[in-house]
């Protein structure tokens, strides 16, 4: 399994899902794909399709509407998979934590592997977070 295990670390395909974010973190996620940061050099490709994804990048706090969608998307990703909560809101609920329609952070609905705090997160922090998730994937014996 060594070859497949190594390949997993070298080719994480991400899928980006926006719960109810203010779009600040979403813009930073997309900034990672621009020529300045170019995450494709690590084999990271932005997929629009949960069935092809390995890593879920989730931004924004979970509300009662998006919880069902998030759960559905998570179930459609074939394992082994990683979930990264991008931004303060996705990690804890942030400034929206006590809104009447907000459940809180992403971990209220799906298991989260890496939390990236920041409002909004910097692209460097997102890349760091993905690298951390890959280290976790590498150390896990799947």
């Amino acid at each position, binding site marked *: 399994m060594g070859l*497949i*295990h*190594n390949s997993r670390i070298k080719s994480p395909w991400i899928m980006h899902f926006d719960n109810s974010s203010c779009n600040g973190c979403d813009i930073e996620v997309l900034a990672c794909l621009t020529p300045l940061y170019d995450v*494709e050099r*690590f084999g990271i490709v932005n997929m629009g*399709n949960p069935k092809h994804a390995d890593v879920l990048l989730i931004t924004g706090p979970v509300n009662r509407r998006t919880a069902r969608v998030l759960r559905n998307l998570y179930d*459609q990703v*074939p394992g082994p998979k990683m979930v990264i909560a991008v931004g303060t809101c996705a990690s804890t609920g942030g400034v929206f934590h006590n809104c009447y329609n907000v459940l809180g952070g992403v971990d209220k609905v799906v298991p989260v592997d890496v939390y990236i705090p920041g409002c909004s997160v910097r692209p460097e922090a997102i890349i760091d977070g993905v690298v951390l998730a890959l280290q976790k994937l590498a150390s896990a014996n799947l």
Partner: protein
Amino acid sequence: MMRQLILLIATIVVAPFIGGLLFGIDRRITARLQGRFGPPILQPFYDFLKLIGKERIAVSRLQFVWIYAYLVFMVGSLLCLVFQSDFLILVFLLGFAGVSLVLAGFSTKSPYSHFGANRELLQIMAYEPVLLLLAIGIYAQNGTFLISEIFNQSRPLIFSLWPLFIAVLYVLTIKMRKSPFDIATSHHAHQEIVKGVITEFSGPYYALYQLAEWYEIVLVLGIVALFWTNPLWVGILIALAAFLLELLIDNIAARMTAPWMVRLSWTVGLILGVLNIAYIYFTKGVS
């Protein structure tokens, strides 16, 4: 017999490596054209191995049968080329492969998959007549559909069939699903129909699809190389130049709609092809 067996195994083993490398070079050159650094050349192989190790999610069992059929027909078509068999059979096997992919798309209930399958049908409609005209052109020139006869001729096909060569370059773009004709799989526009016909392929089955694509690129570039078979290395250089040209077109062109693709392919491809064949028969006389 022994030699043929070795050739058979060598084709099945070596072709995916060449195809995968070509896709790796494709991604690297595309990145450089866009001012990015780009992934390693071996990236497609990492992707492939990762997909092999992913979980199997069955949406429809019928779909798996069609993905295997796509792969098998594609390999069969490539073997036709390598064993210098009948060009017409090669075109038909390639057609069966395309139809298998369409049926794989139709065998799930996802609307994106259905949209993609419909568009894949349009793509087949766009390139298949051109390939058939190429077969007729080869017949008009050599008096036989056999690929081995092309290798026997000392005069390269490109001198008499250059209009069909231009038409085949269109086929190459459509077959590679590159930017002006990035229609069925929606490679660069996830917002439109997610991933089109391959939306529901996941894990190991998506890896099989990629494997079939690697065979396909070798096959289509091989068809381009047929235009100059004596000596063959000139043909291979022409094929590689055509490949680089496709990458350039991919990066400078916008995505177009499916009806536009069919219209362009039929007007340019069919007119060039028919004129070409008519000219050959006029100069040689119908025998």
